[in-house]
């Protein structure tokens, strides 16, 4: 029986960025859903099981870091990767967020496609590991 591809949620208020991430991740074997709204993202993670969510740090309806915390609360098995055209890796919000495990990775825009694929792969493996442990 063919295994279902891992599901990835993309949350970015730029439709063209959603398009780009979908065109990077789908050919790599993931089932991708995208939304430009933080509120819709929260509805989606409750309704469907996503291994990974790529979340933009700045969304118009909900702060990206706040959304990340809410996703982790409502869907603990979903790993979050933060993407940002605003923050940099060395910003305190990012270093503290990584340290506290709020998100498992951070990618600054513009990025290499390989960064996205590598992060997706790591996140899916981590989600599988958590699932096998009964988490």
């Amino acid at each position, binding site marked *: 029986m063919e295994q279902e591809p891992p599901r990835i949620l993309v949350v970015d208020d730029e439709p*063209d960025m959603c398009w*780009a*991430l979908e065109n990077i991740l789908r050919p790599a074997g993931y089932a991708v859903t995208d939304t430009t709204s933080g509120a819709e993202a929260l509805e989606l993670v409750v309704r469907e099981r996503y291994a990974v969510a790529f979340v933009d740090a700045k969304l118009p309806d909900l702060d990206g870091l*706040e959304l990340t915390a809410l996703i982790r609360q409502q869907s603990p098995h979903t790993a979050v990767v933060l993407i940002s055209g605003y923050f940099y890796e060395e910003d305190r919000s990012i270093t503290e967020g990584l340290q506290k495990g*709020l998100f498992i990775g951070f990618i600054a*825009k513009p990025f290499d496609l390989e960064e996205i694929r590598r992060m997706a792969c790591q996140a899916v493996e981590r989600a599988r590991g958590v699932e096998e442990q009964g988490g």
Partner: protein
Amino acid sequence: MRNPLGIISASAQLLLEHPDDAELRSQCANKIYTATERASLIIENLLKFARPQSERIKPVDLHAVLEETLALLAHQMALQKVTLQKQFQPNLPRVHGSPEMLQQVATNLILNACNAMPEGGTLTVATRTTEAGQVQIRFSDTGRGIPPEHLSKIFDPFFTTMPVGKGIGLGLSISYSIIQQHQGTIGVESQVGQGTTFTVRLPVMADSR
């Protein structure tokens, strides 16, 4: 700026990876074109902002700035059950400055006041002319107050007591810098459990006296 650059970069990389996919090629070319136009607009606005200070300085009606800021934040204040009291001195003299930068200061101080009152409270914004002939604006809240050991640090860059993701502590530092650029002063008084008052003083514009 990094958002359109991200789209341009991703589209160009996709083009390199899939040169034979005609549909993807067309989509990527369109995305690059649109994002380049957007980036160009952002640069144009940044260049306008970077113009010499004298081109952005003008007479400022502080009441107009405050009213606009309060209107922009009205919904958020209502959500947080913050009651607004305005005590505006009639015929407040104008100041020389940048209305956009002064609005940034007002926004920062009002949002800080609201964040100090998570269960709701009262924000008082009061304006008057001081005995020394300056314009004074006070932003007072009935929030949790600032502990004495933090008072000396609150204008320091990156100092914040907010949790991760709720602010990186640059707002007051930037406000301090803006007021200094306007030849003014900004001070703070606070009592834990009672509230905080920020006082901004700015020199009156010469022909407003």
